């Protein structure tokens, strides 16, 4: 029952209207919850309690049911994602090539854990299983870009590059 502090919810009326439309379109379908949650995550980037409540209200299901589905599938996120989404591959090939050390370095560099987002909202870290680039192991993705044959030192430099682009330091 430990509560983690999350950045405050900042949904816009446009997002809410979009979600309402999605709910209306799916409402009558059996098993509407899953497609609606997919769309909700597309719209908001994650599924905070405020969004899950809107879904529960709209579909007439309980919040505990919505939460159960949202926590069952690993593609749903309850925490916001950063402007830049870092995804470290922990698939077999990457793992034997030391992906755990790459992930540890990213976490150390940004001061957050996998699954979390930095306070300034710039970066979030996740792990994934295989991006289909095993020949480049260990691999990580930042947004749509793939970085392969990584070493911890290179990870540092890559993130610095993004930081420089954003004009700040971490």
């Amino acid at each position, binding site marked *: *029952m430990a509560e983690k502090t999350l950045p405050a919810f900042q949904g816009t009326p446009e997002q809410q209207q979009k979600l309402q439309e999605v709910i209306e379109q799916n409402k009558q379908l059996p098993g509407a919850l899953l497609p609606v949650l997919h769309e909700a995550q597309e719209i908001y980037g994650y599924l905070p*309690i405020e969004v*899950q*409540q809107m879904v*529960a209200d709209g579909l007439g*299901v*309980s*919040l*505990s*049911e*919505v*939460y*159960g589905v949202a*926590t*069952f599938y690993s593609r749903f996120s309850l925490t916001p994602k950063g402007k830049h989404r870092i995804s470290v591959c922990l698939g077999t090939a990457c793992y034997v090539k030391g992906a755990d050390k790459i992930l540890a370095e990213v976490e150390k560099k940004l001061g957050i854990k996998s699954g979390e987002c930095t306070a300034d909202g710039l970066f979030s870290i996740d792990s994934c299983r295989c991006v289909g680039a095993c020949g480049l192991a260990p691999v990580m993705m930042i947004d749509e870009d793939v970085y392969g044959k990584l070493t911890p030192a290179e990870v540092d430099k890559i993130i610095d590059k993004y930081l420089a682009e954003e004009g700040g330091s971490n």
Partner: protein
Amino acid sequence: METVHLKINNIPVEVPKGYTILQAAKEANIEIPTLCYLKDINCIGACRVCMVEAKNRRGLLAACVYPAEEGLEVFTNTPAVIKSRKTTLELLLSTHHKKCLSCVRNNNCELQRLAAEYGVDEDRFTSEEPIYEIDDASPYIVRDNNKCIQCMRCVAACKNVQSVSVIGPIKRGFAVHVGSAFDKSLNDSPCVGCGQCVVSCPVGALTEKSQEDKVWEAIADPEKQVVFYTAPSIKATLGESFGLPVGTNVDGKMTAAIRRLGEGVKIFNMDFTADLTILEEANELIERVQNGGTLPMFTSCCPGWVKFVEHYYPEFIPHLSTCKSPQAMFGAVLKSYYCEKNNIDPKNLFVVSVIPCTAKKFEASRPDLRSNEAYDDVDVALTTRELARMIKRAGISFNELEEEDYDAPFNKATGGGAIFGATGGVLEAALRTAARTLDGEFKKVDFEEVRGPEAVRTVTYEVAGIKINVAVTSGLGNARQLLEKIKKGEADYQMVEIMACPGGCINGGGQPLLSDSIRNYVDYKALRSKALYDYDAAAEFRCSDESPVIKMVYDEYFEAPGKEKAHKYLHTTYVPRDKYYK
């Protein structure tokens, strides 16, 4: 009716089409073990304990969900079946916190019973240390997920039966656990406290929040005078905790046992405040009908139902009778009338109610029920199970006790009060008194039309030229459907009785836990109700207004139903609550 023929362990049986193997086996007097299955509540074939073998079928079949087919030959006891069940139990035990000695379910646990029957090695697979924080924040229910076997019976009771759905499975794989949305405490959820989850749990993962120690302390305190009162349904269920058959009325032994819990302990009859509720409620109904008040009027005796309205249908709050429940009325009567009459400082009167219900624990803590801000009217509300544990700990040979009566002055009550414990009972008792008030010549006492197991009973009565449409239901899922109908204007009633638990208080969340072999095969709700209706039929007085104790308290204190003092002590208000939070 179409039937199918099959063999269970070579015994031929004929059963209706649609029966499962589990049901068919019972026809051959063979009980297949189950864990996740619970009749009328949960049937998901998840735990794999009920596996059986069948001729010409590959693999084992889950008997609780597999249909009985024509010509099927089932074997429930083969080495392959035994091995499978044993391994399943060993796996379940690998993540179960095996703290059996101090577990409240010791000797009354389905997992423990099966483990003993199958001689399983509890340590075959590595045990995990307890990892979940115990959720004991609410005043009524404690959840210990370290003992949970994820059978989902509590989830099904909450969602499918009660339509409340404040608990559900969270996450997946090894991380899966049952809890409320966003892993908040049950106390922060819109739980109504009915406790149907507790009576559905096969193990010790869900229990009531025990308050026995507080009562023992008060009994030992020379400053305190301890008074008990027992709800109408307790007499029909307490005996089960002492090995007596379901439906045994133990009124006299219960009274004797409570008196022996400690020196000076008094035991009063809560059927008296059930009668008092009827006087106030019948008066309120007549006033509402005659003066154009909000109708239909809903009964308000059931705290789970009241909280359900407050959370999910706050627009219906004006429909709730303003009468306090019998538990709350008794607390108020004791701390006002009784204390004044006997020169007792209300702070030294320790009031213990024994109730069939976990929601009554919540009710006892409601600040809006205090008739004086300085103290609660009810100090402790004990479930039937807690009372049974206290009697056992006191070493009282319950079954050997001579029957005794309740203590004066609250010793006499009517059959109308007694049937409060069964669905339809409150309405029937109210009808008895309302009819006699409106028409002095009215003779009907048994309103059998409102009794029984049907989900919703609706009847129209005509009294003194006034037509009264009534409806009765129990179980909050049924209540929700009825409310939706009323909301849409599809139904027109003057009075509606609703109890949160299916069948009423006799099936309350605080009642003795019945083993699966009783719950799945015996109509225990009918047996328990019958004990109350038999008690009513044999009662000296049948109508609440005939009770001499009722006459006494009105003459000496409350004047008449609905009068100023009666209103101050016997009526209450309600609060709209959030749909998603506490």
